[in-house]
């Protein structure tokens, strides 16, 4: 008697039969089970005793189904060649666990497979089959829904996006004291449309401002757009070609409406691959008149053509480069980022293996949206952590927002002494532009709402916090008021910056990896040179929570003075500035601290 099959399982089989094309068929049929791909996968390296992480084992989950329903030897002799169909939703859940939770579609195994089996392509297909019947991690469903309904994968509303862009425009105008710096929106006839990852609008708007400054100083005729600005594409991750096509089409339509000749894609691996390479296929669109390029190429061109000047000595901290899988293995973009890095950084150190042989950051394939697999992801990041540590670099540069998040997470997890940046940060930092001399204004205590525009001009503020988002936020707030802002991701680097850069004010987080903020505070207060250095503690815990209480007990026990101010997260920007002005109003001038 034929075994009963759930309707989902039935649908998955029917769709598999429709979706298999020649490339997928060959990848599914060609595997000889040689196992050469095994040690090439970061999941295997972190779980050497668990064969279920081996690429061929994972691939076989779909291959068995293919053999049972499509491959003729499998249909004739199923047991002999390992063919097996699916019948229940539980079996589909098991397939979900593999294709979403045990593979980031990084393609590293394919580059090291003698048969040329393209694992990532059919793993994506398997994801699409499951998504079609509603089986997927919750985060994947949410992100896809946002991208379908709101038009971007982080659900950023149009007003918020436009407000953020406007905010960044004001930032730039203040920073360079130049009202002519603009971030144009929907400017008809612009040569170039700049598209971004919504993460930039939501968490890291400085990258928008930095790119805008680069366009401005290069004299570019450019614009951003109010619709179709998100170049990311969750269709790549959830295997839904229709979503992939819809997202890509939005971007192409926006560029056509503007009449632009070029779409510049900000630094995002999957966004670049989806928009430039896969998008035309998914959306069945030919774009003969529009060029697409990564912002890496744009920035490199500006430097080579002399449209912007850079000084690499401004980036002297040792840096390394992490190749995003989508950039390197799926799009061959390996040399251009390095060329650019060498132009804007003075101490670039290669990481091994690199380029097409690099290991995934472990946040790829949409992994950052699948919270349930986070422990597995972080465990699999062991090899990446070892690679990073071996470079001795203090900054890892990557051209991908997923990699930024993946690497930030693993750096924290493996307690590495480094931070993550993108090329745009480095180019911006190295920019040589005629900046107006900062006007030093004497800070005075002010009432809320009456803070002068450049109240902190001439002051150097050091932000010590392990959270990159917090550092970015504080940097924006202080820069907005004219201060020069330095950053340190941990107490040790903070110490170094205090010694080398002599800041006028330090904001200090308490809970940080390696050395805590309270330890650093104590060390500073007992040091003759720095005992009067103005310090504002900015911590993420309420008064009744342990770290704060512990801090007060700690300073009482050590007999050291209270900090100049104590603020709690979430950060209130006005409060931060008022506090800084008040603290600096009573400061010991930095030359007396020497």
């Amino acid at each position, binding site marked *: 008697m034929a075994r009963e099959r759930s309707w989902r399982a039935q649908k998955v089989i029917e769709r598999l039969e429709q979706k298999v*094309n*020649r490339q997928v068929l060959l990848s599914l049929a060609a595997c000889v089970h040689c196992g050469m791909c095994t040690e090439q996968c970061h999941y295997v390296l972190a779980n050497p005793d668990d064969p279920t992480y*081996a690429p061929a084992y994972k691939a076989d989950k779909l291959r068995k189904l293919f053999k049972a329903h499509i491959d003729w030897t499998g249909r004739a002799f199923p047991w002999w*060649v390992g063919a097996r169909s699916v019948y229940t939703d539980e079996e589909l859940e098991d397939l979900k666990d593999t294709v979403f939770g045990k593979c980031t579609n990084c393609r590293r195994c394919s580059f090291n497979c003698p*048969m040329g089996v393209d694992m990532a392509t059919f793993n994506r297909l398997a994801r699409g089959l499951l998504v079609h019947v509603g089986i997927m991690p919750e985060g994947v469903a949410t992100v896809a829904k946002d991208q379908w309904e709101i038009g971007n994968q982080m659900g950023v509303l149009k007003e918020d996006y436009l407000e953020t862009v406007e905010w960044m425009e004001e930032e730039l105008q203040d920073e360079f004291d130049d009202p002519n710096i603009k971030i144009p929106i929907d400017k008809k006839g612009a040569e170039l449309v700049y598209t971004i990852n919504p993460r930039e609008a939501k968490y890291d708007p400085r990258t928008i401002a930095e790119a805008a400054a680069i366009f401005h100083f290069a004299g570019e005729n450019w614009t951003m757009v109010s619709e179709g600005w998100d170049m990311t594409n969750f269709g790549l991750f959830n295997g839904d070609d229709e979503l992939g096509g819809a997202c890509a089409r939005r971007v192409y339509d926006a560029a056509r409406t503007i009449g632009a000749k070029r779409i510049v894609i900000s630094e995002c691996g999957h966004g670049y691959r989806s928009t430039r390479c896969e*998008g035309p296929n998914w959306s069945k669109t030919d774009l003969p008149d529009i060029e697409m390029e990564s912002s890496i190429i744009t920035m490199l061109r500006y430097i080579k053509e002399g449209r912007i000047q850079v000084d690499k000595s401004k980036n002297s901290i040792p840096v390394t480069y992490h190749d995003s899988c989508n950039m390197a293995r799926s*799009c*061959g973009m390996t040399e251009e980022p390095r060329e650019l890095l060498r132009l804007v950084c003075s101490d670039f150190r*290669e990481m091994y293996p690199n*380029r097409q042989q690099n290991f995934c950051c472990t946040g790829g394939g949409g992994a950052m949206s699948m919270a349930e697999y986070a422990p597995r992801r972080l465990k699999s990041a062991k090899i990446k952590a070892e690679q990073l540590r071996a470079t001795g670099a203090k900054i890892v540069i990557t051209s991908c927002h997923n990699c930024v998040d993946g690497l930030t997470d693993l750096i924290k997890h493996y307690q590495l002494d480094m931070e993550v940046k993108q090329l745009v940060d480095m180019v911006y930092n190295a920019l040589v532009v005629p900046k107006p001399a900062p006007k030093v204004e004497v800070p005075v205590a002010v009432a809320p709402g009456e803070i002068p525009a450049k109240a902190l001009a001439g002051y150097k503020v050091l932000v010590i916090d392990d959270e990159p988002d917090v550092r970015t936020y504080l940097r924006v707030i202080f820069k907005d008021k004219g201060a020069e802002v330095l950053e340190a991701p941990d107490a040790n680097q903070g110490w170094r910056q205090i010694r080398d850069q002599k800041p006028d004010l330090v904001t200090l987080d308490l809970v940080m990896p390696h050395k805590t903020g309270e330890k650093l505070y104590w060390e500073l207060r007992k040091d003759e040179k720095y005992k009067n250095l103005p310090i504002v503690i900015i911590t993420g815990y309420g008064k009744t929570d342990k770290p704060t209480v512990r801090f007060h007990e700690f300073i009482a026990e050590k007999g050291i003075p209270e900090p100049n101010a104590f603020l709690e997260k979430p950060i209130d920007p006005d409060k931060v500035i008022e506090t800084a002005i008040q603290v600096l109003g009573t400061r010991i001038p930095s030359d007396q601290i020497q």
Partner: protein
Amino acid sequence: MYETSPLLHFAEDTLQIAALAFMAIVYALKIRWILKFPAGKERQKPTAPPGRDGRKGALYSLAAIALPWAMASYRERPLRYVQFAVFHLAVAASILMSFLIPYAPETIASPAAVVALQAIFAAGILMGLMRLWRRLADPHVRAISTPDDYFSLALLIVWLGASIAAAPNAREVSETPLLAYFFLTAFFLVYVPFSKISHYIYYPFSRYYLGKTLGRRGAYPLANPAAMLKPES
């Protein structure tokens, strides 16, 4: 002059031709089956930098098996490449021998040629046994192995054993080794299209398509694969 028995004559001639014809028909059907599936179309403009394109990518990809230094998997475990190369060389030599014995015996009649062939087959058996051991002992490979994987490998090892015995082509002493060899060869030819051994039919296709896509996007050919893995000294 020795008169070959009708059975051996049948085994080395008619049976081989019939088995080869059968294999060819099944292969043709297999290729037709592959081509029935539409090839995914690339609409994207070529994005590779100068010096790389789909054609170069495809050629590089097809040559990949002869470029073990380009793959981390083989660079890290060179012995596995030796196993692969020697084993496949032995199989190819035995296939060649199955044509030479009946149709051009003089080409491999010298004692040196016989010893050379036997040495290749023996090395092939050794490599085959190592591969079989790995399939049984390595939990990762064991977990993916099907009955066909074991049987195909065992079949080839046994066939290479028969090849050693058949290589001297000493039918006047005994026909048994030759009969065993040719019957096994015929079985092998008939079995191949239904087994994993038919991977060499897929190889050119799968490598071609992967290489074409990666070449068009500039990821293939790898410029300096060795330098990606370790700092150059």
